[in-house]
């Protein structure tokens, strides 16, 4: 079956559900829908973006309490009272307030790496929970009751059977929007967060912004879930918004398959049903004395993670393989190109750059310049500080002292995405591709700054024209470097040499004025090297400035216009290839014997 057929079958079953299922199962499905919404946010946040949150239940709580408070409290001041008239007005209010709280928390904590964030979320998850229970206007631990039902086209959704459709409509809309978002320019930036942040920044992605975006989306999904919950139950108290429930949401996402949108649905379904089933079954076997379901539940979770670390969705996908995905890049009009500097003008100038790491001086008073339409080769033994110089020029690591000028402006100290924006693009010595993404998508990240489609537009598929142009541009660059037949292959499945070539295509997709290549020929075979040399020659003739770090002498000497030689972080020679080759210092550095 094709993916489309699977989805259609699923939707049909979903629509038929309330017509045939007993009350109890409808209730269960309603809860699965509510949980799936939250878990979906976690898939985006944790599975895709790599940011772990235990605090989603608290966001659900803010959503639920906002609507509960606004619709039940008498005598609110006029400027808010009108919101409480209908749950349809409190929905945006719930989302807005939750997102606002999330924005504050996100700005405070998202900049932290890996494991601080989950611990931080435990902290605010606990705090918000205790607040719900201790603030008197929210009813303390007794909660808020008498919340009105939602009306839709004049029908009060008091019956779970009707509410079911509202819940699942919301879930499906969220699924659709998330899927769309991930398959877009913004989505590629989000998918680069986990394991590719340095690369993404070098391609102009504002990773801090991308993190905040998914954090806010996850919070908004949680808020919608909370709003639905409040009006389904028509009563709220703090219990379902505590840390333990926050942990459970994370369970759902991880067990379902945190990297996959459908994993959220699977996880929410499995865990809800499993818990229900354990609560039913175990007391019958062991008697009601102990809390057996939690023991069995915990053990099952451990077992599943031992067997399937990436969750169950990938396992299911393997069992039911899909036929033919889209295998063609549609042709589309060109993207705008930047005005290039005049041939022969200085593009890059490094003046007296110094970089120290603790006691090590990696770069010592390095100076060099690159002109438009010129290939400058930077050579030197491994460990001479060439890659350090690259990182310093491209803003990955700011210099300790000295200046870097690019196209007339000073760029040292700028973030690498700012430097990328000005027209500098690079490759990395240690290939930084996103292994599971296709070559096409990897290269399209290079063109990130040439598009402007936002998150909302992407979620609603309003930026498809631009997206088509971006992908077409990426495909063009892939063809240019000679990898046309690998466009749809996962980048990680290519040979190392080819992966380096993909890096070049990605850099070219940015339409740069200056290209920095860190050992592009390493791992290439003879013919591939010749093809690469030809490509670089062509780019030079088109007026591109190229700074090339390379080890392969043959490659460099046949290609470069000028050569700078480094040793121990310093420049020891500079000149035409023939001059450098005859320089005794260079011979000593490169060929120095041991005797």
């Amino acid at each position, binding site marked *: 079956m094709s993916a489309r057929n699977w989805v259609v079958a699923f939707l049909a079953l979903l629509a038929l559900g309330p017509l045939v299922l007993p009350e109890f199962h409808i209730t269960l499905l309603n809860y699965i829908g509510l949980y799936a919404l939250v878990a979906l946010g976690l898939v985006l946040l944790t599975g895709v973006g790599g940011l772990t949150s235990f605090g989603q239940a608290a966001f659900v709580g803010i959503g639920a309490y906002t609507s509960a408070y606004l619709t039940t409290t008498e005598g609110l001041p006029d400027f808010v009272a009108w919101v409480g008239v209908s749950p349809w007005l409190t929905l945006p209010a719930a989302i807005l307030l939750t997102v606002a709280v999330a924005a504050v928390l996100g700005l405070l904590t998202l900049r932290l790496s*890996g494991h*601080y964030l989950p*611990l931080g979320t*435990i902290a605010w998850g606990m705090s918000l929970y205790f607040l719900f229970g201790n603030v008197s206007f929210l009813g303390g631990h007794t909660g808020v009751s008498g919340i009105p039902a939602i009306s839709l086209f004049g029908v009060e959704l008091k019956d779970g059977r009707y509410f079911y459709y509202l819940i699942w409509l919301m879930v499906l809309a969220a699924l659709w929007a998330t899927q769309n978002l991930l398959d877009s320019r913004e989505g590629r930036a989000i998918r680069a967060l986990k394991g590719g942040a340095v690369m993404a920044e070098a391609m102009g992605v504002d990773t801090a912004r991308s993190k905040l975006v998914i954090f806010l989306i996850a919070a908004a999904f949680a808020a919608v879930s909370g709003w639905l919950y409040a009006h389904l139950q028509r009563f709220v108290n703090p219990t379902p918004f505590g840390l333990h429930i926050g942990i459970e949401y994370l369970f759902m996402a991880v067990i379902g398959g945190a990297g996959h949108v459908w994993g959220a649905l699977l996880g929410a379904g499995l865990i809800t049903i499993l818990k229900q089933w354990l609560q039913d079954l175990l007391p019958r076997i062991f008697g009601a004395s102990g809390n057996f379901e939690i023991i069995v539940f*915990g053990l099952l979770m451990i077992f599943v*993670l*031992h067997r399937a670390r990436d969750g169950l969705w990938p396992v299911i996908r393997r069992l039911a393989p899909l036929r033919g995905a889209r295998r063609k890049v549609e042709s589309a009009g060109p993207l705008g190109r930047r005005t290039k500097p005049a041939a022969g003008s200085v593009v890059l100038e490094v003046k007296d750059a110094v970089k120290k790491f603790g006691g090590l001086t990696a770069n010592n008073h390095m100076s060099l310049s690159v002109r438009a339409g010129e290939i400058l080769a930077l050579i030197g033994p491994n460990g001479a500080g060439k890659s350090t110089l690259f990182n310093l020029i491209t803003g990955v690591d700011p210099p300790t002292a000295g200046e870097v000028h690019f196209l007339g402006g000073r760029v040292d100290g700028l973030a690498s995405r700012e430097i990328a924006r000005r027209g500098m693009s690079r490759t990395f010595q240690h290939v930084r591709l996103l292994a599971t993404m296709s070559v096409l998508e990897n290269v399209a990240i290079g063109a990130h700054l040439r598009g402007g489609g936002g998150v909302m537009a992407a979620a609603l598929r309003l930026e498809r024209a631009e997206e088509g142009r971006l992908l077409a541009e990426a495909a063009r660059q892939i063809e240019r470097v000679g990898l046309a037949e690998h466009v749809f292959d996962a980048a990680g499945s290519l040979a190392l040499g080819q992966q380096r070539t993909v890096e070049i295509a990605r850099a070219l997709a940015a339409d740069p004025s200056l290209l920095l290549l860190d050992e592009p020929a390493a791992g290439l075979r003879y013919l591939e090297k010749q093809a690469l040399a030809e490509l670089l020659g062509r780019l030079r003739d088109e007026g591109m400035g190229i700074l090339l770090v390379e080890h392969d002498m043959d490659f460099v000497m046949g290609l470069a216009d000028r050569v700078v030689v480094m040793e121990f972080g310093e420049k020891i020679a500079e000149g035409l290839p023939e001059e450098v080759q005859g320089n005794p210092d260079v011979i000593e550095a490169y060929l120095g014997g041991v005797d």
Partner: protein
Amino acid sequence: MDLQIALLLSQDGIVNGAIYALLALALVLVFAVTRVIFIPQGEFVAFGALTLAGFQAGKVPGTLWLLIGLGAAIAIVEVVIAMRSGALRRLTSALGWNLGYPAVAAAVVFLGEPVSWPLFVQVVLALAMVVPLGPMVYRLAYQPLLSASVLVLLIVSVAVHLTLVGLGLLFFGAEGSRTPAFSEASFEIGGVVVTGQTLWVVGASAVLIVVLYLFFERSLWGKALRATAINRTGARLMGISSTQAGKLSFVLAAAIGALSGILIAPITTVYYDTGFLIGLKGFVAAIVGGLASYPIAAAGAILVGLLESFSSFWASAFKEVIVFTLIIPVLVWRSLTTRHVEEEE
């Protein structure tokens, strides 16, 4: 508030802070060595206290069954692995430890009469029952996931926590226990009564911290653990196995947890699920220390303890909120001092 109350609150805060400090040290240790965020730490606190309480009440503590059960489970796993790989050599020692040790423990509990033994022996026996659970849990839950991501390890930690809480309820029941104080002595200092138990807690914590310091600075295994924490690949190249280091760190964490439980059992009533909140406060302290620095984590723990006791006086309903929001400014400070782009593992 007068000075006397302030001193009293400080005393409470320091006692709790000393316990949080121990737990924070264990958490930092386990995380640095294994990348596991050890959420079940709190269960070891509860198990330590409740096992001792069990002995004192003349009951057979449930931890014995846990010890036997986990030992048997490991034995089964080891046999299956050994049969698959054909390497039966190492099996004897694995079986000896995992079946033999629990058997000896059972013999001591059933043949002896722990209720009549002196407190000190009961404490040692309780530790002997609870501490081996640490490496056993590591063997079963974490060792097969040596190369898994921090997220997966974290989720497993939560699952282990849930399982142990469930087992705690099963073994110890829903009622809490409180054990008699180690010392009935009390002193009056500046108008404030300082109990012997307070001195015990603070003194034992201090001694334990010094012992741990010496272990990490002087002993080969202590250095090996630090080496693994600093550079895992480098440590493996020295022949320090990541699993061995992991197990050892779990031994230490379990010992610290159980001992903490035993120390606080005379001060507060311990329930089967008390550990979680205590463990979380250890976390707050560990975060203050950045999950890396032991002395700062210890200082953070004292701060958490003091904050807790003072806020319980001023705004007791918001005690937990205040303690847990302490993390936020610390995180902000950290975010301002960390570099802007970092590669996630």
